[in-house]
């Protein structure tokens, strides 16, 4: 038997009895960041492939939402900061070793680009939109000429933004559940899947919906593979990681993970999408809502569970 007690009675807020320094704000941001990354990626890719006419929702309509999604995500991040008046310090340093630093700089690139892309496509949502001032019209005209450059940036920074949400967590070796490099690709895939789901919801064209349902099915397959792969890695790793994996393999987050993330978030929407592709009509909102919910739950459970996993000494 081994019993460990802090006999001096340490009870530091959010550290004891279990670490809970990061709450819902971080999970919400990781989810919204991933979703925004997915939307930007598809918009950029299909624009560069010259399919803007074929997939108008993916290229033009859905990305208008990105600045709003990012703003909500950044607001959640801001809420998480405890020393708020100093947030600008993020932009007085570039620290390559800190994923949070290059995440902050990535957002500095992604946010303005997404705003410009949204501005030049605003008429998708508000057909009578008028910029009113001549200078605003001139700016719009200027950026319309650089669509291709922006699309490239959207693809590249979309991937960086999506993968960074996972790397942010995986860089902490003190939290064995996070300390797996598969988390970056897993969160990226999940973000792309959430993006394609949202495009399906907004799209009015049957053809576009069908293509994104197919893309989403592939992404769900990859996600399931990554999840299995993650647990295989944990089980073959050190004691601390084996114990971290136990949280989801019999421990007290098992039911939440397998029911909310795997069954409701991946398997059920995949089945519904297959049914839809086989011409059994399913209201599109159902699989989309499930995918977005599963995508959020994945982040929430990994963020929460990671803080329960630790080194033992």
């Amino acid at each position: 038997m081994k019993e460990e007690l802090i006999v001096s009675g340490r009870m530091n807020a959010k550290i004891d009895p279990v670490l809970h320094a990061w709450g819902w704000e971080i999970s919400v941001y990781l989810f919204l960041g991933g979703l925004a990354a997915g939307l930007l990626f598809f918009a950029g890719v299909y624009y560069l492939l010259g399919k803007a006419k074929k997939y108008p929702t993916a290229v033009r309509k859905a990305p208008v939402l990105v600045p709003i999604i990012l703003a909500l995500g950044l607001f959640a991040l801001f809420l998480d900061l405890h020393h708020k008046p100093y947030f600008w310090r993020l932009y007085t340093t570039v620290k390559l070793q800190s994923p949070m630093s290059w995440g902050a700089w990535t957002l500095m690139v992604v946010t303005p680009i997404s705003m410009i892309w949204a501005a030049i496509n605003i008429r998708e949502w508000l057909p009578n939109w008028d910029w009113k001032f001549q200078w605003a019209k001139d700016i719009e005209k200027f950026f319309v000429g650089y669509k291709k450059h922006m699309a490239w940036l959207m693809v590249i920074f979309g991937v960086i933004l999506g993968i960074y949400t996972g790397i942010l967590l995986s860089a902490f070796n003190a939290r064995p559940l996070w300390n797996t490099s598969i988390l970056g690709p897993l969160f990226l895939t999940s973000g792309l899947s959430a993006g394609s789901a949202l495009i399906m919801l907004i799209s009015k064209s049957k053809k576009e919906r069908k293509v994104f349902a197919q893309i989403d099915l592939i992404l769900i397959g990859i996600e399931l593979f990554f999840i299995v792969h993650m647990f295989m890695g944990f089980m073959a790793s050190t004691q601390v990681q084996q114990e971290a994996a136990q949280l989801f393999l019999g421990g007290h987050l098992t039911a939440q993970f397998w029911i909310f993330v795997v069954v409701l978030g991946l398997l059920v929407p995949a089945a519904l999408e297959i049914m839809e592709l086989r011409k059994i009509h399913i209201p599109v909102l159902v699989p989309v809502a499930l995918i977005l919910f599963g995508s959020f739950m994945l982040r929430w459970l990994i963020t929460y569970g990671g803080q329960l996993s630790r080194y033992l000494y």
Partner: protein
Amino acid sequence: MRYAMAVDTKKCVGCSDCVVACQTENDVSIGYCRDWVVEINHGTYPQLETEIRSERCNHCDNSPCVRCCPTGASHYSDGGTVLVTKNKCIGCSACIESCPYDARYTHPDGYVDKCTFCLHRVKKGMQPACVAVCPTKCMYFGDLDDPNSSVTKVLKIRNYKVLAPEAGTKPNIYFLI
């Protein structure tokens, strides 16, 4: 200069005087502490073994908290001491997440706070408050580069361990066993 501390687990009685001394010296907010005492009991009766450790920030040579800090608020100072610059800290908690020893906490004013090895005392030639106050004299503080410092001497003649060496942090608090 490499500051380090050795804590004799055979001499420590777990009185928590070090904790109170630190709270008083550093004006630590009520309800928080920068150092703490752990008691570990191994085995089953009657074969029981107890280890008592006074723990704090390990002022690691390879600090994950310094690495992950996005603003450079967490930094290395004199003798490898890990400190936080208050007005650079944004309170993002990344360093708290990165510490395998849970040695940091968010100060009620928003920035991150932790043990400083009482650098303000050390600079005046004094011992850190926890070391100075210890009634069993179980703690040793000094410079590992100085062959005559108490910590160098005691580490030469005693067996010791560090906490979670597998985390790769290269900690500077040694526990004499």
